[in-house]
């Protein structure tokens, strides 16, 4: 992360699975990020409001260490990626549809337990629950 967490930012806590022991833990999300998602469309608001908590609480896999190409990266231990396939995807007008075939939803969490990014990504050919390229992208699988 660039600096210590900005104390002026405000956060909400969501429940999440702790992939180390299966217990429940808290993951934060900033109001600024929520506002940014809400401003985009109803569909983006629903991704944040419905899909993100679902993936954090019912992931099909959790990886740690967002590896960068040739670096021993600084986003190593503690930076996690929660993966899963939600019940629905959402059009920009907020209407629900079935999840996109061959895609998996990812929620990225930093080492201060803040969810800072989430999105659809193509799934691996050999496992529809995992993102394509996961072997190279992440340092280790926790769940």
């Amino acid at each position, binding site marked *: 992360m660039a600096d210590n967490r900005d104390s002026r930012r405000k956060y909400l806590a*969501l429940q999440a699975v702790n992939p180390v022991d299966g217990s429940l833990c808290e993951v934060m999300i900033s109001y600024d990020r929520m506002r940014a998602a*809400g401003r985009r469309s109803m569909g983006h608001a629903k991704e944040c409001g419905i899909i993100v908590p679902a993936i954090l609480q019912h992931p099909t896999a959790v990886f740690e260490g967002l590896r960068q190409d040739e670096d021993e990266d600084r986003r190593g231990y503690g930076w996690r990626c929660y993966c899963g396939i939600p019940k629905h995807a959402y059009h920009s007008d907020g209407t629900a549809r079935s999840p996109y075939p061959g895609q998996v939803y990812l929620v990225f969490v930093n080492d201060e337990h803040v969810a800072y990014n989430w999105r659809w990504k193509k799934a691996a050919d050999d496992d529809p629950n995992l993102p394509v390229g996961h072997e190279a992208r992440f340092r280790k699988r926790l769940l």
Partner: protein
Amino acid sequence: MSAIANDEFAKRMMLLAQPAEQFKPTATYDPDGDCIEFLAKPDAFFAERVDDLVTVYYSQETGEVIGSLIKDVSAFCRDMFERFPGFRIEIQAGRVSLQHIFLARLWTERFARDDLTTLTYRKLIEVSGETPIEGELSCV
């Protein structure tokens, strides 16, 4: 801080939601991820990694490029300041245009002219236009 219930969180998000018709292209710096997220259309999207700096967003509806995520922004700016001190001139009051970041990357890497990465960066330069970045970069 105790965790908020899922339905309460969803309700709060719905209160923040705006219809897609009111959408304006946005680029936002997020200090939690040290990243800049740019979106030119309100469509749902999927992401594909371009390189260690940029992940590009494609519309789920049309397949066209509609945005990007620029990762590890502080490290990129520091690297640029070291190699090209003049890059600092492009940053004013903690703000830099997306086009300058994409161009800087193109000018400092040995991508072939017709390389897919080059074409993706060119498309992003075209799509990002004059979209201002909200939020102050912490690297400057």
